[in-house]
């Protein structure tokens, strides 16, 4: 079931990008279902092996990307790992906690992306960082819905064996 969840996240994310409203930020930095799903996987994973779903999500995201293979596999894998490490500091499973934690992970994701682009191309021009940060904010606002959907549809329940907060 978790594999279906991963495929659905990729499919919805890409289809949303294709048909997103023609406004500046919805086209250039739309909220990313895949980013929030990788954070969800980090929050709900019982151990680091289960973070492999985030890496799989990243490999599929690479297929829809102009960037080379490994870019999103690394970014989503690292974001999920970060979510797994910070969740012990998140006070509760409330919606605001999801938003704040997702915002933090999203900002780290933006800077990790900048790191890759800087190493590959020697810098990121064209307002890339501002777009990535706006995307982090918009994705964080999407977090309560994505967390709620994945919790209720139970796609990841069998594969991710932790509720999240007992992991130390």
């Amino acid at each position, binding site marked *: 079931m978790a594999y279906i969840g991963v495929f659905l996240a990729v499919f919805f*994310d*890409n*289809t949303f*990008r*294709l048909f*997103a409203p*023609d406004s*500046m930020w919805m*086209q*250039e*930095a739309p909220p*990313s279902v*895949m980013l929030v799903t990788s954070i969800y996987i980090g929050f709900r994973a019982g*151990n*680091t*092996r289960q*973070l492999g779903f985030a*890496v799989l999500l*990243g*490999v599929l*995201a*690479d*297929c*829809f*990307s*102009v*960037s*080379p*293979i*490994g*870019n*999103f*596999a*690394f970014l989503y*894998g*690292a974001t999920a*790992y970060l979510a797994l490490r910070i969740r012990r500091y998140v006070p509760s499973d409330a919606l605001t906690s999801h938003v704040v934690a997702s915002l933090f992970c999203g900002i780290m994701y*933006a800077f990790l*992306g*900048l790191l*890759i*682009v800087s*190493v*590959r*191309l020697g810098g*990121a*021009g*064209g*307002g*890339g*960082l501002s*777009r*990535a940060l706006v*995307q982090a904010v918009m994705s964080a606002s999407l977090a309560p819905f994505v967390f709620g959907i994945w919790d209720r549809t139970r796609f990841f329940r069998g594969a991710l064996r932790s509720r999240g907060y007992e992991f130390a």
Partner: protein
Amino acid sequence: MRRFRRIDRYLLVLAVLFVIAVLNPRNLPGEEVLPTVYRQLIHKPLLAQAAGATHREAIDLVKLRAELARSQHQVAELKDQLGKARQLAGLTAKSTARRRPRPIDGWIYAVETNPYRVGFRIDVGQAVGVRSGMPVVVGSALMGTVTSVDKHGATVRRIDDPTMRMEVKVLSEEGALAGIAVGAGDREMEIRLVRKTGRVRPGDKVFTMMGHAIMPGDLFVGEVSSVEDFNEDGVLEIRVTPAVSLSSWAEVTVLDTGRK
């Protein structure tokens, strides 16, 4: 202790992925499956909706379009071989006339996910003659260039991508000024290195330069939106707004000039 060992192993995996992301120049070989998936799931219903056709008719339409593109590619290749054979036989001198570029229609099936890059993927590839470097247009306006090609799909870098560099000319009232356009992100391009020999005004038209084998000249790039000389060194910083709305097009055309 075991947990730490497992975490270290995961970090090792991340380190390997980072190295791959930094060093690997190519996209996934399995990407060519996705254009077919999107053609089946998204483009056919869209076509049917647009044409007021039934789903069955839309399927036939997509098949016919694909068949037409393959046939056009074969015809172009046969013409090329015929021309070479004629040259070998000494029947004709090498033609210097400009050939009309062959259009290859394709659909955008994925928009770039990475906020640091600007581009998209289209569902036509080597099978219908798409090659790296070819221009992608909407009407007669340039939208981007093909950067890598699979059998059934291609990656396109949009003209406002920060890594985009292309020779252009600005048509002002005092004639054409040459320069190099650089992608500035956020749906804009910037032209530098245009010497202050003529006056460029907002509203002047920008076109591609002739001379590049695979890129035809005189493709409409956009309009000058602002002209500044920030450093007062005689080098103008010209901002160009692309001619096409870069995000709202689902169908684009790849131009095959027949040259390599």
